[in-house]
């Protein structure tokens, strides 16, 4: 497997792992609205990332671009905007109806970014150790 593909697999796995760990920790240590925020925020952003991954891997390859032609842009854009609108509406409903605590939601929404940050740090560490050896 190529190094870059390994990073995506690592980010995906770490993403779900972080989601579970933060949700569990929040459930044990914080009030219900905060833990619900972490859970729902993490779920929204993780599902979003999976759908984005599927859209890009399915559509951004030379064979598909050549075959689909004009419908290519429409296909990606429509899926992208539907995904974005749904997540926006969900976040709006969660905050405007005071279902979750905003700080918990922010922590939950940071799950994907945190896993990418972890992947970057690991790669950097590997790079430094490689150069040291």
């Amino acid at each position, binding site marked *: 497997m190529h190094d*870059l*593909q390994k990073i995506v697999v690592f980010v995906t796995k770490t993403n779900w792992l972080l989601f579970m760990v933060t949700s569990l920790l929040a459930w044990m240590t914080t009030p219900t609205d905060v833990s619900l925020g972490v859970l729902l925020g993490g779920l929204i*952003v993780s599902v979003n990332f999976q759908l984005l991954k599927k859209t*890009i891997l399915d559509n951004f390859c*030379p064979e598909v671009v050549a075959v689909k032609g004009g419908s290519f842009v429409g296909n990606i854009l429509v899926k992208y905007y539907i995904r974005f609108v749904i997540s926006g509406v969900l*976040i709006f409903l969660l905050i405007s109806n*005071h279902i979750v605590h905003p700080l918990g939601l922010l922590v939950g*929404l*940071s799950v994907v970014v945190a896993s*990418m940050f972890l992947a970057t740090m690991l790669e950097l560490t590997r790079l430094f150790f490689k150069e040291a050896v």
Partner: protein
Amino acid sequence: MEFLVGSVWAAGLAIGIAAFGCGIGQGLGLAGAMNGISRNPEAAGKIQVNMLIGLAMIESLCIYALVVSLILLYAHPALKGTIAVVAAH
């Protein structure tokens, strides 16, 4: 009252500026990726992965801005008191 108006202005500006920046960033990223794939189709796999990570990072920034603007509008800690004061007048 000024506080409410300020909150609405801040929320609008927050999501507006964030969407502007993220839109430009994603557009540049996608344009670069499409150029790269069309010039060198063999590199499509590498470009896809980099693009996926980049788009997810940019998109999360826009989602943060959306959350901040929604907090300013609906869940600001000082908003309840201000609304009560405005309603009393």
